[in-house]
């Protein structure tokens, strides 16, 4: 537990020293959503129809920007070796890395989503569903994307590989997340897709850290 705490406070301290790393995703989300608004026709009702998809895809792509940096600096400076040799279980440390990644990139996106959704013309009743969906979905991306980042950390160039491997893994998250918002827009019950998202989240938080730590150990070979 103390190890997890130490790792979390280190990640947050590092983020304070390198601000651009975690300011980029919210800014990216802002730019994408604004450009959609400016690029379309004025007062186009279609925009509010596509708003769930725009917000979901932009949020996930924004979070994807930082995934490459999740384990790479630690791999390059040798910290990963020390983490692998630490007495505690590695999956707990990997989980701490995922939590730190979500706090720094997922949480700001969740908080930004509501005002941007209103800006895109999403009806007021659907906004809570969107925020709830993102709150459940962005941690899934931190975990699933973190697994791919762990898998590719030992490779010299992963620029293209990372998004190519992550995108199929997060398709279910986007389907259920955007589906929940669409259901809420049409006045239907949005609970079922949100429960599916919650189930994906529980699965990824319980299974992925173990798999990702095995992938990290593999990076030295």
């Amino acid at each position, binding site marked *: 537990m103390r190890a997890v705490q130490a790792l979390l406070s280190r990640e947050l*301290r*590092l983020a304070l020293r390198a601000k651009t790393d975690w300011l980029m995703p919210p800014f990216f989300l802002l730019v994408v959503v604004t450009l959609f608004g400016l690029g379309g026709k004025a007062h186009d009702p279609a925009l509010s129809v596509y708003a769930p998809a725009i917000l979901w895809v932009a949020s996930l792509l924004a979070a994807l920007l930082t995934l490459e940096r999740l384990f790479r600096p*630690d791999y390059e400076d*040798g910290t990963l070796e020390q983490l692998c040799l630490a007495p505690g279980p590695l999956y707990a*440390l990997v989980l701490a890395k995922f939590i730190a990644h979500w706090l720094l990139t997922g949480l700001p996106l969740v908080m930004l989503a509501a005002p941007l959704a209103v800006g895109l013309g999403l009806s007021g009743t659907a906004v809570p569903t969107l925020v709830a969906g993102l709150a459940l979905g962005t941690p899934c991306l931190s975990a699933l994307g973190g697994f791919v980042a762990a898998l590719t950390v030992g490779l010299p160039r992963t620029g293209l590989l990372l998004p190519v491997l992550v995108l199929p893994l997060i398709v279910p998250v986007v389907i259920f997340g955007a589906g929940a918002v669409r259901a809420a827009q049409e006045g239907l019950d949005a609970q079922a897709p949100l429960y599916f998202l919650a189930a994906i989240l529980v699965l990824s938080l319980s299974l992925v850290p173990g798999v990702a730590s095995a992938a990290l150990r593999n990076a030295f*070979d």
Partner: protein
Amino acid sequence: MTRLLIQALCIRRGDRVLVPTLDLAVTSGELLHVRGANGSGKTTLLEMLAGLRPAEGIRREPEDMPLHWIGHRNALASHLSPIENLQFWCGVNGVDAAGVVPALERMRLPPAARRRPVRMLSAGQKRRSALARLLLVQRPLWLLDEPLDGLDRDGIAILGELLSAHVRAGGLVVMTSHQALPANLPSVREIELARGMM
């Protein structure tokens, strides 16, 4: 009796076999100096001994012998100061962080450098900060990859003191170095890794 047994160990990197078979025993109170040309498998051997790489034929007695690993990379985050880096290491390893400043003191890292981000330190100062881990907690087995890298004469002397104190107290050291080791170390054994050695 603490010892490290290496039996019929095959050192390979990917598909390349560097050393087909290696037999060796390091017992308590011994320092093993691994030598060899670049690319002869010294670092790979140390990584296998540390358990970072899968290996068959390595036995530690006792099995859960704690070890210190100082790789050729210093494991210091460049935006954090040496003190912050070592405090983090203490937290992850469940060690009391009160020993951090005395350890850096012992490595004779100037007080100003202890609080500066690591990226602004010289190579030798980084190395001293990394080696300060050896003082934070007592562990019987030390695996050091090129620990003398970047150290000045004073730094080498400090490391020499640490090494001889550790070996005299019954510890085990396996280290690589291209430079000559600090003088007056007790019970040093050398092995030379070479392609296809038996």
